[in-house]
């Protein structure tokens, strides 16, 4: 008995400790709740990497470089805490689609966000196929893959670029050109390519447009290349600057956007918090009125559940969306399920003539398979939803699944410990009354 009481005390203290952590971290801003864009306000852009236009063997490398380049550019524009991530999506038929998801908190002008990303140039070096006449430069090429081989060197190999002035023929014209520096991998590929293909043409592409298609006269070691394409000084300078921010290895297409204004997001947060507080209050009141003393214990278990889940939200951290808040509020209603199952069974055993202590033990024992099954069926749903999910649904599924697991723990172990720690042996009418529930009938 003493041991049980000590355990109960430890649970209570731990709950209070975690509660204090929640409170103080909220005040100090350490480990804040992470809010999704639909709550904080901002823009999400989803791009598709167009590998049909620029085939490569190293898809994951290209995607990593794509992510780094976009991330650098987004950071440059002072967006706070942007998230840039890659994702493999796809309809079941056909090749999977490589996607780039860009989340820009605080940016609520969709077009501005698109422009910010869209200025990143796509750079490709491609060898012209054998026995093909070089196409005209300066205009977009429809059937690029018919003329050119797959890109050999791309934006992911670029380290820096600068504007230079070429000595024109006879030193007359000073044509502005852009000089590129490759990283060691890019430099090696470029050196090998030029050494093995002297006499062939290669095309330099910016955003899919052939800027120049020079003939390879000799091997070019040293990891540098020159783009010359009738630039004005201003045009060359702008290009060099944009290339310095990074160039993409593969063209990207916008396939989805989502923008939520800060006002709407803030409103949703306020309403979500209000709904959470009222939801907890209403469920607690119901449990107290219907189940009396055990009800009080289940409210304590519910409080511990709420504290534990909120702390997990902060620590994991879970990105909360409106759907996630809905899942949390739903989980409050479900968290007391296990308690209801146990209490109803305990009440039946009491009516069957058992002592309170035996009835409690039997109630827990008999209710367990039911609790396990209901949580299994909920977990199945949560797992499938998580897989099905767009980020919105994933948020729901994660919170829902987390809620199911944690609530099983709190509802069973915590309320059991509390109930037994009370150590009620008496058979007085008052105690029995406290253990009866609203629908009790002496049958």
């Amino acid at each position, binding site marked *: 008995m003493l041991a049980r009481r000590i355990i109960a005390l430890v649970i209570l203290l731990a709950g209070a400790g975690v509660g204090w952590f929640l409170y103080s971290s909220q005040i100090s801003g350490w480990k804040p709740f992470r809010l999704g864009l639909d709550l904080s306000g901002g823009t999400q852009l989803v791009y*598709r990497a167009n590998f049909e236009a620029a085939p490569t063997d190293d898809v994951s490398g290209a995607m990593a470089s794509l992510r780094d380049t976009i991330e650098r550019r987004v950071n440059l524009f002072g967006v706070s805490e942007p998230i840039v991530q890659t994702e493999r*999506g796809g*309809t*079941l038929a056909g090749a999977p*689609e490589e996607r780039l998801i860009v989340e820009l908190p605080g940016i*609520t002008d*969709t*077009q501005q966000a*698109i422009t910010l990303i869209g200025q990143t140039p796509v750079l490709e070096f491609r060898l012209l196929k054998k026995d093909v006449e070089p196409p005209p430069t300066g205009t977009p090429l429809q059937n690029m893959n018919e003329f050119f081989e797959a890109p050999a060197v791309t934006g992911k190999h670029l380290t820096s670029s600068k504007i230079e002035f070429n000595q024109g023929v006879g030193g007359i014209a000073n044509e502005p050109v852009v000089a590129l520096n490759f990283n060691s991998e890019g430099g090696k590929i470029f050196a090998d390519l030029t050494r093995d293909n002297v006499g062939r043409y290669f095309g330099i592409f910016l955003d899919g447009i052939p800027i120049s298609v020079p003939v390879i006269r000799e091997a070019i070691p040293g990891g540098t290349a020159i783009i010359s394409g009738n630039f004005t000084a201003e045009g060359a300078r702008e290009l060099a600057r944009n290339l310095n921010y990074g160039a993409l290895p593969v063209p990207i297409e916008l*396939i*989805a*956007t*989502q*923008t*939520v*204004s800060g006002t*709407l997001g803030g409103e*949703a947060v306020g*309403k*979500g918090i*209000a*709904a959470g507080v*009222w*939801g907890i209050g*209403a*469920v607690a009141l*119901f449990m107290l009125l*219907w189940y009396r003393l055990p009800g009080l214990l289940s409210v304590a278990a519910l409080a511990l559940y709420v504290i534990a889940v909120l702390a997990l939200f902060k620590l994991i951290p879970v990105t909360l969306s*409106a*759907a996630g808040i*809905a899942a949390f*509020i*739903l989980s*409050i*209603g*479900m968290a*007391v*399920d296990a308690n*209801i199952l146990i209490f*109803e069974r305990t009440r*039946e055993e009491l009516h069957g003539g058992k002592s309170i202590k035996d009835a409690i033990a039997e109630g827990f024992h008999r209710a367990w398979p*039911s609790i396990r*099954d*209901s949580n299994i*069926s*909920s977990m*199945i*749903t949560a797992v*499938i*939803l998580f*897989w*099905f*999910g*767009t980020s919105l*649904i994933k948020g*729901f*599924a994660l919170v*829902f699944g987390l809620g199911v697991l944690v609530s099983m723990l709190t509802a069973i172990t915590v309320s059991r410990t509390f109930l037994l720690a009370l150590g009620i042996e008496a058979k007085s009418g008052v105690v029995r009354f406290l253990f009866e*529930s609203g*629908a009790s009938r002496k049958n």
Partner: protein
Amino acid sequence: MVIVKNRNIFFALTGALVLASVISLMFFGLRLGIDFTGGTLAQVTYPSGRPSAEEISQSLTKARFTGYSLREAGTNDYVLRAQNMTEDQRANLIEILSVDSNSAEISQLNEIGPTIGKELRNKALIALAAVLICILLFIAFAFRKVSRPVSSWVYGLIALITLVHDVIIPVGFYAALGHFAGAQIDTLFITAVLTVLGFSIHDTIVVFDRVRENLRVNGERNRREDFAETAGRSLGQTFVRSVNTSLTVLITLLVLFFIGPESTRYFALTLLVGIIAGTYSSIFLATPLLVQWEKRRSKK
């Protein structure tokens, strides 16, 4: 047990509700949202009072928007649904939507490309199938022990029938909601239906488990009891539990519906209807069907 005795009344009531849902579905149909079709969904606020829909429509048509719809929302808002926008349309959206002195603010803008829409549609169907298969396996597992006088596959079949009921009702309801309030089928709706499936199957299984437990106890004690009696008694024993577990969930859903965020309002409503349907079917449909089956069988 009142419910078992008067089961014909409840069969009639259930039939009427299902029929109403099917009719609603046939007449109103389901409107797929942009999650599944691709397109643009914008919520536009007019802080200085909203202009008439005609004025905005003129401006939209001039900007070459086709096949769009405008619906009033809140006090100062419109919800615009349209096909995917061009770069120009997106760049000038605020100017296009601002009419005269009423300047528009965009509080929410979603664009989904056609490929993503198609992918989500496929995924939703697969998720639905996956949940159904898992639940079938779950039912098969839960009723693996053969029992008398009703064989175990009948329990499973009836559990499935109640599941169908639990899906038809919210779907029919949502069709009506779509017609009268412009609600569209989105990923959240699918989520709600799947959540209802997982939640309500369990309710039915608990009642059936109790029926079998009582049958077993009767067998052990050599007690003779009419099957309808046993089933009714089991229902009575689990009734409060069924109602109360649903009630606490319904309480939180009501709170979510009335004071929760706007974006999850229809979601909460769908869950509300689905869970009420699920609780109803596990009490008023499952066990009465079981009794009916046994009566039919013993007559032969």
